[in-house]
């Protein structure tokens, strides 16, 4: 079985023609800065874009051979949670403060109770899920505010995994957590992913997190995927999109001692008013005349795809 996503959407130019393919049991990392359209992409896959504001105007999302865009809302509801589930960035706000942790997990299970399991079977599953994410089951009667940030994120993960989904979309799952807790949660997530045989889309702004956890990487900038490939392409490949180079230049490197960072000048363009040609050209150190007028086509080296005139020219 192959899971394929093919999106080509346009939401106030938040996401602008992106193509992604994710195979089963793989982890795809989507990297980009604030406003790059990462979350919009994730919400589009689940068709959870805010109504009246967000709209997918073009393209397909193919999941297990079926197009999700044309699917009925009732079918979609089944897909959400059961087949694809989502972990949100902020564990503090994604849990309901007036229900106990156990109740919230139970609710998720009950909603997708296709096999007509009995109440006690569901309860047993709740305990099992909590143990799985490393929370003692006797804490299930506690309320979210009694948990720390890391523990809450574990609960969120337990809820997301409750129905054994095929795909988990994790939107910055560890950004709100401390480093040591982040390490715990990430380690647990990749362990569970292998154990349960899921695919995962990991959305983050942290290249370090990607390097440690993903099989494939897509770098997003201003609603487009400027570079994607398998992990080795991005971290060890020779050719890069100038934006990717800029991102790497911005991270203080622990293994080397440099005194100056090499950041990218300027700011992310306004999504309402994107520059003509390559969207990155106003900030690009390798900008050429053609970049200002013509949108670069994807240029591929095997598994590695880059959208850049400069890379294309120097490799032809």
């Amino acid at each position, binding site marked *: 079985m192959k899971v394929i996503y093919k999106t080509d959407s346009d939401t106030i130019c938040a996401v602008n023609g992106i193509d992604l393919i994710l195979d089963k049991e793989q982890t795809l990392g989507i990297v980009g800065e604030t406003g790059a359209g990462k979350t919009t992409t994730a919400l589009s896959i689940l068709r959870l874009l805010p109504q009246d504001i967000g709209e997918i105007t073009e393209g397909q999302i193919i999941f297990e051979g079926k197009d999700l865009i044309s699917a009925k809302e009732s079918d979609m509801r089944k897909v959400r949670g059961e087949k694809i589930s989502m972990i949100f960035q902020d564990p503090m706000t994604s849990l309901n403060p007036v229900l106990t942790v156990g109740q919230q997990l139970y609710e998720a299970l009950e909603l997708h109770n296709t096999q007509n399991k009995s109440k006690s079977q569901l309860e047993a599953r709740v305990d099992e899920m909590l143990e799985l994410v490393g929370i003692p089951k006797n804490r299930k009667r506690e309320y979210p505010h009694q948990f720390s940030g890391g523990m809450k994120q574990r609960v969120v993960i337990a809820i997301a995994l409750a129905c054994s989904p095929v795909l988990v979309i994790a939107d910055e799952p560890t950004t709100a957590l401390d*480093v040591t807790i*982040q390490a715990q949660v990430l380690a647990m997530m990749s362990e569970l992913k292998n154990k349960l045989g899921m695919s995962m889309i990991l959305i983050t702004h942290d290249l370090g997190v990607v390097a440690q956890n993903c099989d494939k990487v897509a770098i997003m900038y201003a609603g487009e995927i400027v570079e994607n490939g398998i992990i080795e392409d991005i971290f060890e490949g020779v050719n890069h999109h100038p934006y990717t180079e800029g991102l790497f230049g911005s991270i203080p490197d622990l293994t080397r001692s440099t005194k100056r960072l090499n950041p990218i000048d300027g700011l992310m363009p306004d999504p309402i008013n994107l520059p003509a040609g390559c969207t990155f050209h106003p900030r690009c150190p390798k900008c050429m005349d053609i970049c200002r007028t013509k949108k670069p086509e994807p240029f591929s080296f095997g598994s590695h795809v880059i959208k850049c005139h400069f890379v294309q020219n120097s490799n032809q």
Partner: protein
Amino acid sequence: MNMPLIQTKNLKKYFRTQKGDLHAVDNVNIDINKGKTLGVVGESGCGKSTLGRVILRLLEPTFGEVIYNGNDIIHLNQKQMNNIRQKMQIIFQDPYASLNPRMTVSEIIAEPIKVCKIIKDKEELNQRVFDLMKIVGLDYRFINTYPHEMDGGRRQRIGIARALALNPEFIVCDEPVSALDVSIQAQILNLMMDLQEDHGLTYMFITHDLSVVKHISDEIMVMYLGQCVEKAPSEELFANPLHPYTQALLDAIPIASLKERDKLRKIIKGEVTSPINPKPGCRFASRCFHVTAECKNDGLGLVEVSQGHYVSCILHK
């Protein structure tokens, strides 16, 4: 003798809560020489921000001294303190919350100058605001815009310009880049390092991000639950971390390179415990890999293991 610009002695700050005393800062001694940067690292709730605020006397310490240029500033009255304040400034974490949304950029930058009545002439004041904006790399066209119309990076530049307005010698930087995107983060870090060189500034750089702190600091102090567990020159700390907590912190950083990918990382279990009425002994003991019965005993202090490298751990007594 090289006298430190800023020094604290046995600084303590307890907050009274219903459950007991919260030891936010407990017996912290720091000294920063002029023109140097001390990085303060720790997870949320370890008291690093409180430490910064106590040093600036935005919070009153429970016990201890803060010595600036050889004078204890804790017992100064309001007026004397205001003179010292001009020399000590703070840059805040959240550039969204730290700027008054009702003021324009030029008003925000001019505010400290007006408050301290340094420049009275209006044109001269304007000139000073322009100079400051130039220093931090803000375009003049922004003078009369409001902060909410700008992005995070530019707002943080306003915050830096405001901190620089009084020509301070010492700046507490409370997580100045953690709310920013990586590419912007690097721009701001470069700016701060340039400013340090040009103006001979002394920084106390508070952060939770070890990779950022290595980059900018001369010396690093690692805090855990209000206490300093390890203090060493930057290179030394990264090359030779001694305290188990420092090691765990370093291990937990995801590194953007594939070489480290399959390395087995030691991940510490558990979470930061509450600093309310802490038990005697090492506060990290409950999460430590090397915990022994002896760790519960009191009387642990910082020990100098090598030149300038201090650690508070039973393993290095």
